[in-house]
């Protein structure tokens, strides 16, 4: 944190705008903290509000615009990628799209204050073909609220810099503890994955050539090829293995009722 304060003192406007832009494009950087520190710097006459505020706003809207056009030109691919971290990617895409369709404008204004949603809003607006002028208006409103809120917080607390500096050691200890817990969780997760994969090894694997030989033989009628990609078919350009059917892996209980037990099932994903 003291590094952040000294960076802002030395590089002034540029570093805060870079941090704000980086957060807007989804990088895990502390933009809210940087804005608050900048607010305190303005109170201490290190930076000037009339220069800093427009720059921060432009940095944030520029990052959002980049994601908006990424969403516009990649269709649902970007959203699918962002939803990969979700427990249920299929419903994540559907829920996000439907929710944004109903509350898109409000979402863009308040999204900046909600971690996770702040990165989803602009690409969703792009994927859902929101007019750019409309997006720009609501996004700028949201960005202005966000920048002003944290800037004011720092500005009003005149001794904010001192407080965060003195709290640095305590914060450092807390971060160490969080990192330790994170490392333990990481090891446990990988042990769980190892165990899970051991179970998966029970399912036989076949090479493409082996399946082709079966499909070319008189046993072809006993073969059913099944697409189990977790993302649905949102793009008309999507292709799949010829003759395969799709089942929704997140709704397996129901989907299994469609499958014939007398056939050998060959599963594939991307």
């Amino acid at each position, binding site marked *: 944190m003291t590094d952040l304060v000294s960076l802002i003192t030395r590089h002034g406007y540029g570093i805060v705008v870079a941090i704000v832009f980086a957060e807007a494009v989804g990088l895990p950087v502390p933009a809210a903290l940087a804005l608050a520190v900048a607010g305190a710097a303005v109170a201490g006459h290190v930076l000037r509000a009339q220069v800093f505020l427009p720059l921060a706003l432009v940095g944030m809207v520029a990052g959002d615009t980049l994601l908006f056009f990424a969403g516009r030109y990649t269709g649902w691919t970007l959203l699918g990628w962002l939803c990969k971290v979700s427990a249920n990617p299929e419903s994540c895409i559907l829920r996000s799209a439907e929710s944004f369709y109903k509350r898109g404008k409000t979402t863009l204004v308040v999204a900046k204050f909600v971690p996770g949603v702040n990165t989803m809003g602009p690409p969703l607006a792009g994927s859902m073909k929101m007019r750019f002028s409309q997006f720009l208006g609501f996004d700028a409103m949201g960005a202005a609220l966000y920048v002003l809120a944290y800037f004011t917080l720092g500005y009003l607390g005149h001794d904010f810099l001192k407080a965060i500096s003195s709290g640095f050691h305590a914060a450092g200890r807390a971060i160490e503890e969080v990192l330790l817990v994170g490392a333990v969780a990481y090891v446990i997760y990988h042990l769980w994955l190892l165990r899970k994969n051991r179970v998966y090894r029970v*399912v036989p694997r076949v090479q493409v050539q082996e399946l082709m030989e079966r499909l070319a033989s008189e046993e072809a009628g006993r073969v059913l090829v099944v697409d189990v990609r977790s993302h649905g078919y949102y793009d008309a350009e999507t292709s799949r*293995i010829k*003759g395969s059917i799709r089942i929704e892996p997140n709704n397996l209980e129901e989907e299994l009722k469609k499958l014939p037990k007398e056939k050998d099932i060959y599963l594939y994903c991307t």
Partner: protein
Amino acid sequence: MLREKGFNAFIIVGGLAAWRKAGQPLESVPREDLVKLPTFS
């Protein structure tokens, strides 16, 4: 889960990418399987 339910299931090594790489036939997704997501236009 498929095996638990009594299905004789296999996994295709490399999935769709391996199938495509091997030059095997693909098809377009049927229109009725396409999920229509809402758009503002």
